[in-house]
């Protein structure tokens, strides 16, 4: 694979997957847009560096997702931006997930990280239970249980929110 082929192959993969991957990581990161952007960018950079191998991977999107979800670098980057006086780096900005209803985001934020990760892969990436289990390194039974618990937690709150919207007090 020469450099042009590598760039072309990676670019096609990136353009075809980046939105879904970002949204999934954003959900898993509880709407922390800055952390999600950092993690996704870092994961794709890593993917590019090993693209010769990754192009043969049965599910490169799962590889990127796993890498992005496992990144723990954001706090260093954010801390550095805070130290440098970056106005985008403050806690309020870090929690911004524009275009998403704040009430819904609060519900998502209240879920444990494991449940958010399963939701992200099952719902936003349309991964199967098996693919989700593989990507997160957990058992299929755990995927089902986490999804079930997440739905149990979200359902009454979404219903209550809809009632409030239809019948404001």
């Amino acid at each position, binding site marked *: 694979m020469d450099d042009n082929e590598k*760039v072309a192959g*990676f*670019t096609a993969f*990136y*353009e075809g997957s*980046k*939105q879904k*991957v*970002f*949204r999934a990581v*954003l*959900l898993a990161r509880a709407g922390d*847009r800055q952390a999600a*952007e950092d993690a*996704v*960018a*870092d994961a*794709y*950079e*890593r993917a*590019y*560096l090993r693209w010769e191998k990754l192009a043969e991977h049965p599910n490169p999107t799962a590889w990127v997702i*796993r*890498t992005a979800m*496992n*990144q*723990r*670098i954001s*706090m*260093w*980057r954010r801390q550095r931006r805070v130290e440098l006086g970056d106005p985008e780096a403050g806690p309020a900005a870090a929690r911004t*997930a*524009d*275009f*998403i*209803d704040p009430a*819904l985001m609060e519900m*998502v934020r209240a879920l444990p990280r494991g449940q958010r990760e399963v*939701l992200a892969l*099952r*719902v*936003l990436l349309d991964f199967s239970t098996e693919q989700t289990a593989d990507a997160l*390194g957990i058992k299929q039974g755990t995927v089902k249980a986490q999804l079930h618990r997440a*739905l149990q937690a*979200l*359902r009454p709150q*979404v219903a209550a929110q809809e009632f409030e919207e239809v019948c404001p007090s």
Partner: protein
Amino acid sequence: MNDPVLAELKEAFERVSYNRPASTVVARAKRRRHRRRMILGAVPAFGLVAWGYSVTQREITSGNQLGCAESYSQHGNMTVSEKVPGETPEETCTRLMTETGQWEGPPTNPVQCVTHYGRDGGGLLVVPAPEGLDQEEACSAIGAAVPPED
């Protein structure tokens, strides 16, 4: 998956977009690779001959933090954000690499993680083993003392 709650969740997140161009990602990745090569290129200056080992960014910190690069990698950078009670930095580093999927275990690319400046913070060194340097040589390569044994 036809659940209305999940449908609402999906619809909400589909309003968010990520617009970083591929060219930016590729350019940043290339700079990252360049930095890694620069680090590797510095290794022969220490007068040591080994294949495929690399030295992390060396950064001495204070308190309970270890010296850090920005990301985990057995090929160059390592971050340990804080000292974990009951673990040596080497154990922390190895565990985090495994947990974050950065570990490319034997026989592909076995590594050892060692630290210098022992328990008081300092940089981390990542060396492939067994073909790479041993711990004493690795520490010597960055002018550090061999970490104390627990």
